């Protein structure tokens, strides 16, 4: 049974000056639990758009999304937010950590969204797992880029998501830290979760079970 099923997905952006920009057209993709899939393609081919559509953040203009057997776009905004909180984790190239919260509080942030009662314990566990224990009370500005991305990864895993969506997670990292992050993604997939990685980096996609290549049309 597929965890994520995209059928005939298309996305057209309407812009004021140039009219319409077609970012995706007729994309179909299926992702099963335990599967690590990478989407590769040149800049501007719609990789991030595909990831946002898969994550219930951007409604497609055509096609259908089924995530854990539910169409997230059939839900209202608040229920969709709750749906994301309980099933999805996000990792971005820019980390998007909250600058005034410590590592442990950044990792704990999704617990508020999901109403996760054992959030604190799980957060401490993840912080230790990602080698951040000594940095747990530091704010992001005091961390290295590798530590920031590991913090972002720990945050993404707090609510035990079924699907992890990673948008160029190694784009700002050196080879060593990129390797650490990718190993954690593989580890998540091996533990039964699904990973959808978007990257233009050949080295990154090599860790995936399957690579989907997008062309710019």
């Amino acid at each position, binding site marked *: 049974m597929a965890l994520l099923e995209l059928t005939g997905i298309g996305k057209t952006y309407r812009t004021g000056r140039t009219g319409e920009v077609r970012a995706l057209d007729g994309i179909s993709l299926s992702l099963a639990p335990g599967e690590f899939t990478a989407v590769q393609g040149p800049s501007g081919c719609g990789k991030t758009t595909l990831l946002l559509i898969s994550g219930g953040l951007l409604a497609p203009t055509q096609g259908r999304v089924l995530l854990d057997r539910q169409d997230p776009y059939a839900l209202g905004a608040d229920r969709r937010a709750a*749906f*994301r*909180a309980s099933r999805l984790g*996000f990792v971005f190239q820019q980390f998007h950590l909250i*600058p005034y919260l410590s590592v442990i509080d950044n990792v704990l942030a999704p617990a508020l969204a999901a109403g996760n009662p054992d959030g604190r314990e799980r957060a401490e566990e993840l912080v230790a797992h990602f080698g951040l224990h000594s940095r747990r009370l530091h704010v992001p500005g005091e961390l290295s880029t590798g530590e920031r991305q590991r913090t972002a990864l720990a945050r993404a895993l707090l609510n035990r998501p079924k699907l992890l969506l990673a948008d160029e997670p190694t784009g700002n990292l050196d080879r060593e830290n990129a390797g650490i992050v990718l190993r954690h993604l593989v580890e998540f997939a091996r533990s039964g979760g699904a990973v959808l990685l978007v990257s233009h980096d050949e080295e990154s996609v090599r860790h995936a079970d399957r690579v989907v290549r997008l062309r710019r049309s």
Partner: protein
Amino acid sequence: MSLWKLIVREMVHRKLNFLFSLLSVVIAVACLAGAWTLLQADERDTARLLAAKQREVEAAGAELQEAMRKITLGLGFNLLIVPQDQDLNELHLEGGLSSAMPEEYVNRLAHSKIVTVNHLLPSVVRRLTWPEQNIPIILQGTRGEVPILHADPKKPLLDAVPPGRIVLGYQIQQRLKLQPGEKVTLLGREFTVLKAHDERGTADDSTVWIHLAEAQELLGMKNLIHAILALECHCAGERLPAIRQEVMGILPGTQVIERGPPALARAEARSRAQENAVAALQLEVASRLQLRRQHERFAAVLVPVVFTGCLLWIGFLAFGNVRDRRAEIGILRAIGYRAGQIMTIFLGKAAILGLLGALLGYLLGAWGGAFWSAGAEDAPAAGWPGPDLGLMAVAAGAALLLAVFGSWIPALWAARQDPANVLQET
């Protein structure tokens, strides 16, 4: 982790934004509390000043009354009550009276409820030649003032002449060269000179005064009197006919005549002076009330203007805060925060801002208002007026509304941020 922790951490992180917003709330609330405190102080001052003015007017009025009593006495009397059959030509042409009435009349008048007369002087008066000195005199017997029983006791205008004593008019004293303490005989009876009056330029200069009972005995008028002088009567203007009727109702067979127009004029002047004093007080009241209304109008304009300015400034800062936090909002929305939670983050911050601003603004405004109203030099003494719970509640409510309304649209904007757009842009 709670939303409140997140809110507080953010406030600490973006100190300037928070401090500028807080300053706005403090200014607005201080303006409100200051204006309120000033108006309250103004009201207290007005009440105190007017009470003091009232006391001054009363004291001045009492002094004036006393002065006028004396002036009235110097100028003559106001009413003369004489028997109905007394020929007034005799009084006007010869300065004497011949018809008599019972002395008991003065007691009857004193026991009546008459309120228009202050002093009653029964007298006998006769024009005669002092046989022992061979000079014409007006002999007047008086027993001093008869108190009016229902009225407040008044200071007597005239001192009674004690029995065995004689008081001389100026002309008589000049001719006889008698000094106080010397003995003199009048109509066969010996008297001791009590004093001699200074020159008055009236018939008083040719008058001698002795005790009423002695005069009655010497003139063969036991228990009879010629006239009752009613001094300082409240008989100004058109009230005189009514007073005449009142007196004649109590003392039938009498007639009442008005004496001494200057005295009447002075009585009117006294009334006018009192009216002027009251008018001055009313003017002061009106002036203070007008000043207070001006202050109220000023506050009614100033406070809303300041509040509006602060509201716009808080809104501007809140928009800036949302713009700075777009990436944060985007990621929070992506990981599952609901729009209501995003609103709570911004409005919760506004609530903290409002409550803190209310406290600081209240303290600043109330103290500033008290300081200003007391004047810088005695401010430490007048200083802190003490907590005004009502004002504190109003300040807290106003500050909360100000901060929450100011942040409402920015918070709504934050809650409606599309996370996909934000994450693609940042």
